[in-house]
């Protein structure tokens, strides 16, 4: 069974992920998605409806650390890896397109 509209959904998803896919990559991904969504048909079985979702394998309660103040990373360390920065800020291109 070929899923209708998957190609358009892939274009939108690539946009959401802030990624440009080449036509060849879109075609390859569509082929893979047809395959994986076909294999995921078991997710439509009734037994799943009543199960609670698991987000993390073990949820611990009260995992807050001790409420002791501690220093943040030094500013120069934080900015060290920035592609572009001044002394106190990350610099980015203009926001208006």
């Amino acid at each position: 069974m070929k899923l209708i509209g998957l190609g358009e959904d892939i274009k939108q998803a690539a946009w959401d992920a802030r990624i440009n896919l080449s036509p060849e990559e879109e075609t390859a991904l569509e082929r893979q998605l047809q395959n994986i969504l076909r294999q995921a048909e078991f997710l439509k079985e009734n037994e799943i409806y009543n199960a609670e979702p698991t987000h993390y394998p073990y949820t611990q309660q009260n995992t807050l650390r001790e409420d002791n103040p501690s220093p943040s990373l030094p500013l120069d360390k934080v900015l060290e890896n920035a592609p572009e920065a001044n002394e106190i800020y990350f610099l980015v291109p203009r926001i208006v397109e």
Partner: protein
Amino acid sequence: MDINKLKNLNAFISLTSAVKTGETEPAGAITYALADNICTTELKTTCASFMLKAYQPPFGSSAAQKLKEKGALLVGKTNMDEFGVGAWGKSSYFGAVKNPWNEKHTAGSGAAAAVAGGAVTLALATDRWGELRQSAAYCGVMGLKPTYGRISRRGLIDCAPSLEQLGIIARNIADLASALETISGNDPQDPTSYKGDVPSYTDQLQERVRTIKVAVPESWADAPYMTKEVKEAFANGLGRLNKTCFQVETVALPHLRQSLITAVIIGAVEAFSNMANFDGVRFGLRAKGNHLQEMYRLTRTEGFSSEIKQFLTFGALISSGNYYNDYFLKAQKMRTIIKKELDQCLQQYDLILAPTTPFKAPLLGDGDNVNNESLLPDSAASYTAAANLAGLPAMTFPLPSPGTDRLPTAALHFTAKAWDETLLLQTARLLENEQE
């Protein structure tokens, strides 16, 4: 240590200055390597990606810091698939890692190749749906993924935080137990780390073990791309288990075969969210754009490999519209069912045993002979993904290779109850003693 003999394997991305200058480590020193998505302030951390090829972490991994405090010597950062997604050797910016037993085959990861090749005593690497255990099996060494929370995840550049953990690769069980004892324990800077006590694994290795009840899934031979030689090797391995130590029974685990797709769906959605910060603003590559949105898009398009771009797009798709309810939410529900099934099995049995991978290390450049596509789904993870979904400890133990080239054929994959790494280590010690 002779790092030079591993150069042609492409196992390392970077080496510490002591290794580069040829300094000899003190006699008896423990040497280790870190997969290149585990941060250290001593070396760059690239995640084997063009996106981070010059990234110098401002802080290091808690686990690596504990090894350092114990006197272990860092040798270098090891190669892997980009961001650790997969164990195929296809997507690293630095090229594929060759298997030390046969260079025509992938090693799965530089961490496993470095340990198998004798460059280090042990390596820390990450395991999302089994990459650490698969690559250890491909290279004929031991690999342990402990219970989720046993080892701090601070300093790990992960992409699927609910699945992904640090684990250990080693050639012998004594080194593995010692390393686990050293790096386990609560870390206030990792809210997912476990607050319970850490057992003395090295002492417990010596304890006498009662007969171990082992459950083998009745569907163990049904994984996609399962090869005849792995079937035979695993069946022989089962037959050789010492009857006085192991009581083996076949059990039905009907949802085990659904764990791979379930993990891939969950992992892709988490990666789409978790890797949104690779946008060229605070670290890593930045592409030139006329405005902010264009800069984001061009940075991610140029910085990621084709495989990662498709993986993240898949995650974005499953996060959206009807796909979210139809696939992601249901995958999380299936995760509950799989976890419950494994937990119930482990109330009756001590361990679950299956092959680690359905095939031996794939040929480099010819992965299509066992899997037509690269990432989705990764059939190598057919037996390993369930432990990540359930957060259970799991370990791979190599079987003797019958082949003339000594390329490992198959390995035993054990899964234990949560927090019972001790039994995995004791089991491996029994098997190690039998092989000696």
